[in-house]
């Protein structure tokens, strides 16, 4: 039994675009370009309609139609940003940017100090003050030791590269390397997860239910790449 028409079309488009994008692993080609441009175009179109119907219509148009003038000022500030594109009216955009910068800084600075500085400082000291024992104490000591060593690593004043500070900064480098190593290992795992997701989807669309979308399209892509590999390049044609 085959899937209904919309599911079938979706499966063929999904499988086709996935294979087109992966064809780049062999070499750059027009199929990859088609998929790349479609991806960007569809993404922008999607964002535009979502903003239009979920933000502009709900938050600006409907309240204004109902006689509520609250959205006027925010909408004007938002519109002022567009003035940046017109040389004569570019000064208007300063109002919008000034509001954005002031609002952003006012929100970010106190919260960053409270959450990322004071809370972290408290979290490093707290296990010692609260009398933690065993593995918790060992963990806290390791964290505190690593923190101090990394701080030494980023202390560049005179004499910071000699004596105890110098040795601590070397340990700090190793602590950083462990962090970056863990991050890189996780990044590789993340990329494999993405690949797994695409393969899982391709497997789903390989069967008779979807009229063998993946084998058919894979064969077509391979044929196209093989023909291009055999054909003379533009450079060679020009030279002839």
């Amino acid at each position: 039994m085959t899937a209904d028409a919309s599911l079938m079309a979706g499966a063929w488009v999904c499988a086709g675009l996935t294979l087109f994008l992966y064809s780049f692993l062999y070499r750059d080609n027009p199929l990859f370009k088609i998929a790349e441009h479609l991806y960007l175009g569809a993404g922008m179109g999607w964002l535009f309609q979502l903003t239009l119907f979920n933000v502009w219509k709900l938050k600006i148009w409907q309240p204004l139609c109902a006689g509520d003038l609250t959205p006027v000022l925010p909408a004007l500030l938002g519109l002022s940003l567009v003035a940046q594109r017109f040389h004569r009216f570019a000064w208007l955009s300063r109002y919008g940017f000034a509001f954005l910068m002031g609002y952003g800084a006012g929100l970010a600075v106190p919260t960053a100090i409270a959450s990322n500085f004071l809370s972290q400082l408290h979290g490093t000291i707290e296990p010692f003050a609260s009398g933690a024992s065993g593995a918790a104490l060992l963990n806290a000591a390791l964290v505190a030791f690593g923190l101090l060593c990394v701080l030494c690593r980023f202390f560049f004043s005179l004499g910071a590269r000699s004596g105890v500070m110098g040795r601590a900064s070397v340990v700090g480098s190793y602590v950083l390397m462990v962090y970056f190593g863990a991050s890189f290992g996780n990044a590789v795992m993340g990329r494999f997860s993405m690949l797994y997701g695409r393969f899982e989807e391709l497997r789903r669309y390989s069967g008779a239910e979807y009229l063998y979308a993946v084998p058919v399209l894979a064969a077509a892509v391979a044929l196209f790449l093989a023909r291009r590999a055999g054909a003379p390049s533009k450079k060679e044609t020009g030279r002839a």
Partner: protein
Amino acid sequence: MTFKAKARAFLDSLAVLDRRLIFALVAVTLGVAVSLPPRLPASPADADVKKVFDLVENLPENSFILVSADLDPANAPELLPQAKAMLKHAFRKNHRVAVLYFSASAAGVAEELLRESAREYPAKEYGRDYVLLPYMPDYAAALTQMGSDFYGIYDTDSRGAQLKTLPVMSGISRLADVNLAVVFCATTLLDNWVTLASDRFGFKLAGGVTAVLQPRYGPYLQTGQLAGLLGGMKGGADYETLLGAPASGAAGLDALNIANFLALALILCANAALWLRRLL
């Protein structure tokens, strides 16, 4: 050509292995693992995943869980199993769920996530047990507003109904009323949930992030600013194991283990080749 010269040539060829050969090897390995799932034995669940599970498990019935489902098709293989398992758990424990998202590309995935998770519990009703909130482009403004007045920013749900009037929202007027918030994202949005929302308004916050981001949240876990964390496909697989319902996360993890083993073997092979080349 002497044996030594042949060995040198072979080792040199290993050092400049065509990257397309490596791609093909990874493709074949994952392709086989996807077609014939190896069903490896499950490892014990991570402590941070267990914390999230216990939080959902121990909440009193009819608690309100806010889920930020900022996942898109690209990161869905990692985040979708996590989010699905957590939502199923919430429905199983009869909690109320509201799903929101700040990423435009999450719109379709968030809707599908909620629909598919609720499908397994036919008694659950939209508006009474769960709700989907509309897209909001500015997370900073939304989180700040939700802290003082939830309905100041979300006056309607994604279907246009007045949010305040829906039974699922009863007793909820600001973020502090939320029993638990879980943020699934592949960006640093979770940082903003910590700094702009949970630290300021005081509610329990847990996260589900991609593997790349996982090490970044260690400090927040240590200080208790994050109550728990699900990281990458392993996080989803662990949650499914704890739930007693292995699904796509557990199956994916098996394939991932095999692919990781291949990567490890290639790294060891290349290093051994370089080392042997120096000896010859």
